[in-house]
């Protein structure tokens, strides 16, 4: 069995990166993409579906409404004083509190679930990352057997990769230690 290596293709243009993603997907090759911009085209090409962050936002929003009900109704029962002949539990003004807490909890759930699913904070370096991928270049990292590297390299070059680097994951692991 040949050793595992990491191929990192660098692309100057978003379109070229999209072509490479399409080619790799057609050949059933797993990869990781780095992008300096939030590219809809790339995400569409990668096709991993919608983020589960939205479910957490929904749960957070519902929790906010329930907290709003608990806080307003609960404290009204506790401080049980009729003001201006209005019912102790007056729904219309309470809806404002429920609404604000729905937004608050939903927003905080969005941030928290983003950190959870994006694995942030990330203290260890991500294999294949280069500073250029945060600036002006797109990157695709593929972990593969050395024997398959020529085929993958050809796919990426054909799509328009301007540079392909071979990285040894073991070397990086040793370096990190």
């Amino acid at each position, binding site marked *: 069995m040949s050793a595992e290596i990491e191929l990192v293709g660098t692309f100057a243009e978003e379109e070229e990166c999209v072509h490479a993603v399409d080619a790799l997907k057609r050949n059933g090759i797993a990869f*990781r*993409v*780095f*992008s*300096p*911009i*939030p*590219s809809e085209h*790339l*995400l569409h090409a*990668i096709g*991993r579906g*919608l*983020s589960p*962050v*939205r479910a957490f*936002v929904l749960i957070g*929003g519902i929790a906010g409404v329930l907290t709003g009900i608990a*806080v*307003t109704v609960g*404290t*009204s029962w*506790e*401080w049980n004083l009729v*003001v201006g002949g*209005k019912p102790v539990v*007056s729904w219309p*003004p*309470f809806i*404002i*509190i429920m*609404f*604000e*807490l729905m*937004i*608050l909890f*939903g*927003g*905080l759930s*969005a*941030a928290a*679930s*983003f*950190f959870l*699913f*994006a*694995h*942030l*904070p*990330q*203290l*260890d370096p*991500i294999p294949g*990352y280069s*500073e250029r*991928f*945060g*600036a*002006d270049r797109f990157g695709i990292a593929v972990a593969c057997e050395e024997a398959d590297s020529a085929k993958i390299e050809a796919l990426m070059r054909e799509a328009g990769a301007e540079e392909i680097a071979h990285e040894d994951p073991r070397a990086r692991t040793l370096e990190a230690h």
Partner: protein
Amino acid sequence: MAAAIEPINTNPTYADIDRGVHRIMAPPGLLFWAWIGFCATLVAIAAALWTRQIYEGLGVTGLRQPTMWAVYITNFVFWVGIAHSGTLISAILYLFRTRWRTAVYRAAETMTLFAVATAGLFPLIHLGRVWNAYWLLPYPNERYLQPNFRSPLVWDAFAVSTYLTISATFLVMGLIPDVANARDVAKGWRKIFYSILSFGWRGTDEQWRHFQMMYLLLAGLATPLVISVHSVVSWDFAMAQLPGWHSTIFAPYFVAGAILSGVAMVLTLLIPMRRLLNLKEFITPWHLDNLAKVILLTSLVVSYSYITETFMTWYGQDQYEVVTFQMRYFGPYGPLFWLMVWGNCVLPLALFSPRIRRSTIPLFIITIFVNIGMWLERFVIFAGSLTTNFIPSQWGFYRPSITEIMITVGSFAWFLMLFSLFTRYLPIISMTELKEGIRWLRQSLRDDYYPGIR
């Protein structure tokens, strides 16, 4: 000899955008620190006067019966209003995928955060016993006393604190990819600072996938929030029975006014910033023109609200309401009212001219007058209505004391100081979004105006 004018790069690349933004974040010079020192001095004076007010009581202000809400509450509503355009530009225009927002939204969003942070100080400053501020929040206590959730002041505490939290979250989340970019080129303490703030972001497809969903949903949540917050602020007044306050149109009227003042403040900040930091390659006449159009539109809505308010008073013929409005137009605060009309309704009509919308100096002057006009609008509504209440024997005249004046000046200094510091230490222009819409930026630089049309 005049310095040679550098030609504008009309075809910027991703690298040019990075270079331009990194240049702004370079260590600032002595002049910048002198400016920060000046602002900090004003803030210190305001803090000293507030300390004196806490020690001696609200008697050091000009607040007397019947005018117990005046400059402090005007400042509160003014700063909350200023915050609104930030969310409009960053969230609402994001949902509409508006092309011109990319270069200006970070500055607007930053302005939002610091404006809400400034606004939040005023209810505290206005409290005679500031140490009891936490009584607004529900918490278990031995007296079984709880806030009255039917009170607009309690709604306000929830709305403004939610707004502060969500706008801070929105700003910090949006900063992550840009700060990661800055981290990769920074050295020394900045590298550590940016590494912490970027949370180890590397821009992988998985990170972007979750980021985009999170950002979209935050924008979706911030949009109704921004409308609700200023509506709730307006109900602080509209729910009261006072003539001049008790009005059903206050919520939309205040929201439009908030956007008007906020967008004017964005331009008041962007125009000097564009010149001082040499941002002409990123903030083009196209951006200024579109912001000016928002001012024009909201100015027309606000003008319509003023007319409607007057019509309703005339049509209703409620004697108290009629007298309040007569006093508003021709009473002791009359000159302030007409200056407000000039700043909010008349002068912005000049923005029908495309030439003025694209000329920085006239635009800057108009935005200053809009800011003054919007501050006066709140003052005239709050202080003016309170001085002429139901009982003529109670009528009075409010004049702010030096404490209120200097605390107001200090709040502007506090806001400008925070904004200036942000500008030099964090990316005030979103590199990622500017790169994403680079073709529109290029087109706006080439055509100078209206990309895609000419």
